[in-house]
């Protein structure tokens, strides 16, 4: 079964990525986690995402398309990266979520590939 772990990061976390004083500590938190995930042989795909303010959001309102700067929706925590992992069940996926270096991780099962 394949699940996606979605790691939500605060403004603080995103700022730490760019701040020379905190960057190393921030990255180290991820390095060990990514290492443990990869060594367990369950990773299908994983990638960090650039900061939310770099996002462009396409939105259709009543059939009319609009593009806006920034993420959807505007909240305190934003998607910072994802991992797609192949594990037997949701319990195991949640166990991995708990090991992540951020405070909020959403877990959802992936749909089967469209034929």
């Amino acid at each position: 079964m394949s699940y996606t772990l979605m790691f939500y990061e605060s403004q603080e976390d995103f700022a730490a990525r760019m701040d020379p004083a905190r960057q190393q500590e921030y990255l180290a938190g991820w390095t060990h986690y990514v290492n443990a995930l990869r060594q367990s042989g369950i990773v299908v795909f994983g990638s960090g995402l650039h900061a939310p303010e770099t996002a462009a959001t396409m939105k259709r309102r009543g059939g009319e398309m609009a593009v806006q700067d920034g993420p959807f929706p505007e909240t305190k925590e934003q998607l910072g990266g994802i991992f797609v992992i192949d594990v037997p069940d949701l319990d195991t996926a949640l166990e991995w979520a708990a090991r992540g270096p951020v405070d909020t991780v959403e877990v959802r099962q992936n749909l089967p590939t469209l034929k």
Partner: protein
Amino acid sequence: MEAHQVIEQTARNAYGRLLSYLAVNWRDLQAVEDAIGDAFVAALEAWPKIGIPDKPEAWLVTAARRRLIDRARRTRVSESALPTLIAMSEDTQRLASSNTGFPDERLRMMFLCTHPAIDPAMRTPLMLQTVLGIDAARIASAFIVKPSTMSQRLTRVKAKIRTERITFELPDAEEIPNRLDSVLEAIYAAYGSGWDESASTVSPHRRLAEESIYLGRLLLQFNPREPEVNGLLALMLQCEARVGARHDEEGNYIPLSQQDCARWEQSMILEAERYLHIASQAGKIGRFQLMAAIQSVHAQRLWTGQTEWEAIAQLYEGLIRISPTLGSLVGRAAAVAEVYGSECGIALLEAIPSSEVVSYQPYWALAGHLYKRMQRKEDAHLAYSRAIGLSTDISIRQFLNRQAAEI
């Protein structure tokens, strides 16, 4: 005391007794839970008006029983059960008018929750819910499971008990040792076999520790001389005695060997020692007694100022013979490393099949520690990295980071 306070207190102290007593007679756990829930709601409404009854528990049993009879009449599915209920109602009336409390059926409930027909993974959650009244959401968080999934699993297990007529009877004498072992296992799982890792005070698992000790004490009331029951309680108390010493004022994690013994709860350690002594009188060794004995050797540092690693290594040797779990294999490697050197410890670690340790944090934390001592720097970095990546507790991650930085 205010009515709602009495209700809350009664709920905390008597929920399991109420539920067990009604369920043993009525056998439909879900229906009994609903009925008790309704009875508490009724109490919240009635007690402020009529005053707190002399016997709050008897009042609640009567109210819950009434709900069960109503439900049985309404659904007409259990005509045959009505005589049981009515007999029970006479029983409760007699109890309400006498001075003796109603029978404590929680031991039967504990055996039911750990019945061989019930999925081992669901035994602890079921026991926490039925004996202690802990809600599914809290149980789910403690075990890192989706709350709706936990609710569904609990509902399914209760339906299974009803439809398959899983018995509430106490097991036969020859079955007792095995069945008791399942009860002990379920309580220990609630305490958290990885107690040291989930040591953070904010961990929801940590918050089940008190409840587990309560269950251990309860089981002991029913089996005061049973060595393994004494062993489990001693084990949990030894570990619990160190909770306050496991973090410093800034919240930094402190491993057992560096803890200030003055911060251990001495009274809890002494209590644990008493249970371990009672257990040893039976002359029948078991894994919980051995695990408690290992913790007891650690506790001796309080009086002797040192740790007898050789004794610990021997106890692990015995433990592995009875119960070769990953935890005991790693524990033995740690003790052997202290007595005979890091090389011997590493050799034991490396003998464990690697497929079994891919996501076992204590293995990697110990490997990092030993490689570091042996100056195998590259291996130490890799092992610490795995350990950090597998930790769920932030203070442990920080501790391991500091250890790795010293390489």
